[in-house]
């Protein structure tokens, strides 16, 4: 208690200190309150999804609901969401795999190689791609992409396989144009801008001294990119990829419009499939049975869990990758 008199005399000397002290406290309280509201919102969301879905989840069991392959809201009232989980995971990760090299190449090209005007133009297009509503991608998918892929890829491949490699046919599936592959293509083009924009920013933020250090060792442009710039920017690039993955996991309309919406396993390359967001969007308005309704909310709960797990894993990895998390 030696400190107390000193402090109070300080406060007396500067009357504004009391005001400032209070200002500090109020500021802290407001910030804390707002921050906690995010925690409450997240937990509340998860909790109410669970509550809403509990009727169906309890009926099938926590794992049974997840791993069951029959989704029959009409006759048997049996609910297993595995086909939707699989569809979501496959399309999302495949889309990440397809879009990542393209996005990274675009970022490298615009950040390091392209003349200024071209880089500006490409960056503008990338940003525009992110701003296009997903239903527009869906329309484009239905009327342009799916017919195009059917004519140019699916049918020729299918016909070729039917003649030359009949063993492949069951894996190819129905080449109608609406299915997994088309979903992946559309999803890839939708998530490119997220990886591209974050990677581009991360590359631009690599200090000039780092590049110069590599150039001074006699590195070529590509070697500088490989040995210094990309490693330094890897945190931002990874964050971009995770943002893209998150978008892909939750993407609803565009995918629902082109994927064919069939939950019959096994899925095939070209044939129809379905995803968790798609089944929610498509069946929610038609659900009459309480149990069906609850099952749909249950799908939302598991989607929430997947997003949560992906995020936790991503932030763990991000911390490991980030440059500057060590001593600066």
């Amino acid at each position, binding site marked *: 208690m030696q400190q107390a008199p000193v402090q109070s005399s300080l406060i007396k000397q500067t009357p504004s200190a009391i005001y400032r002290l209070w200002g500090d406290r109020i500021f802290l309280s407001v910030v804390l309150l707002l921050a906690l509201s995010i925690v409450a919102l997240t937990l509340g969301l998860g909790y109410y999804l669970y509550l809403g879905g509990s009727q169906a989840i309890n009926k099938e069991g926590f794992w049974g609901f997840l791993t069951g392959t029959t989704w029959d809201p009409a006759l048997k009232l049996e609910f297993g969401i595995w086909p939707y989980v699989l569809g979501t995971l496959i399309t999302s990760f495949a889309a990440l795999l397809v879009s990542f090299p393209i996005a990274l190449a675009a970022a490298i090209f615009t950040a390091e190689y392209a003349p200024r005007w071209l880089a500006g133009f490409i960056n503008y297009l990338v940003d525009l791609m992110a701003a296009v509503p997903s239903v527009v991608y869906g329309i484009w998918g239905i009327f342009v992409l799916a017919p195009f892929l059917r004519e140019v890829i699916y049918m020729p491949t299918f016909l070729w396989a039917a003649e030359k490699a009949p063993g492949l046919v069951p894996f190819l599936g129905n080449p109608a144009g609406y299915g997994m592959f088309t979903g992946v293509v559309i999803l890839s083009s939708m998530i490119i801008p997220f990886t591209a924009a974050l990677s581009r920013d991360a590359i631009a933020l690599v200090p000039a*001294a780092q590049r110069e*250090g590599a150039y001074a060792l006699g590195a070529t442009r590509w070697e500088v990119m490989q040995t210094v710039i990309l490693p330094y920017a890897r945190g931002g690039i990874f964050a971009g990829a995770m943002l893209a993955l998150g978008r892909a996991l939750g993407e609803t309309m565009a995918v629902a419009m082109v994927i064919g919406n069939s939950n019959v396993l096994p899925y095939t390359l070209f044939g129809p499939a379905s995803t968790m967001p798609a089944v929610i969007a498509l069946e929610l308005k038609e659900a009459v049975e309480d149990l069906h309704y609850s099952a749909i909310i249950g799908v939302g709960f598991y989607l929430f869990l997947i997003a949560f797990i992906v995020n936790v894993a991503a932030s763990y990895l991000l911390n490991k990758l980030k440059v500057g998390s060590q001593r600066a």
Partner: protein
Amino acid sequence: MMREFKPMASSEMTLDPSLKTRIETRHVTVIYGQKAGVKDVTMPIYANKVTALIGPSGCGKTTFLRSLNRMHDLTPSARVTGEVLLDGINVYAAGVDPVEVRRKIGMVFQKPNPFPTLSIYGNVVAGLRLVGIRKKSLLDEAAERALRQAALWDEVKDRLHAPSMSLSGGQQQRLCIARALAVEPEVLLMDEPTSALDPISTQSIEDLLTELKNHVTIVIVTHNMQQAGRVSDFTGYFLNGEMVEFGPTSLLFTTPKDKRTEAYITGRFG
């Protein structure tokens, strides 16, 4: 391929004609946008000698140094005119690959810039890996030699694979010196390499320069007059982007020809 240094028309220096010139700059001017960083510098850099560049802050020492290995190529706003002859060949001539130039002319920067994603060891051998050396024994050997030369070996030999950012600022600078040395450049440009170092490490680096001279040509920028006096054979004094005076260090420090040089070295500058 060495060439004799032919005294410049305006030269008033006493030069030993037996000296070999490794680099010769002719009317080097560097312009940042509109503003000149270095104006019309013509000077020799003798082989196997240490050349010091001194002058007040902002006078263009770094700018000049960077013109020697084409580092300005990376600064869009910078434009270099004039010639930098390395063994008689203008490094700015069409057809000269700047990558080759920089392999021959190494550089240590004013601020330490280790690569943070690489370990201590990874930093030292980064340049060797670039030229395709993969053999572990070779890399290990080169890393140890370079780290010893940079007076860092004893401090890091037990944690070669620790992150480079776990080193102190002065250690990082010595790591950067080791990194530059590992590729065994013919010419080494050092921009205030010891400004962040303690007296003991500074001493080691100065000893290193004297030893390296046998096979490397060194250009060192320094704010430390004593250091220039101790380690360099030739000194150039820069002021406002111009080279005011150039000559053997012993002469320049004892009998400067220019009043401005005299004012600077006797501490009456400004």
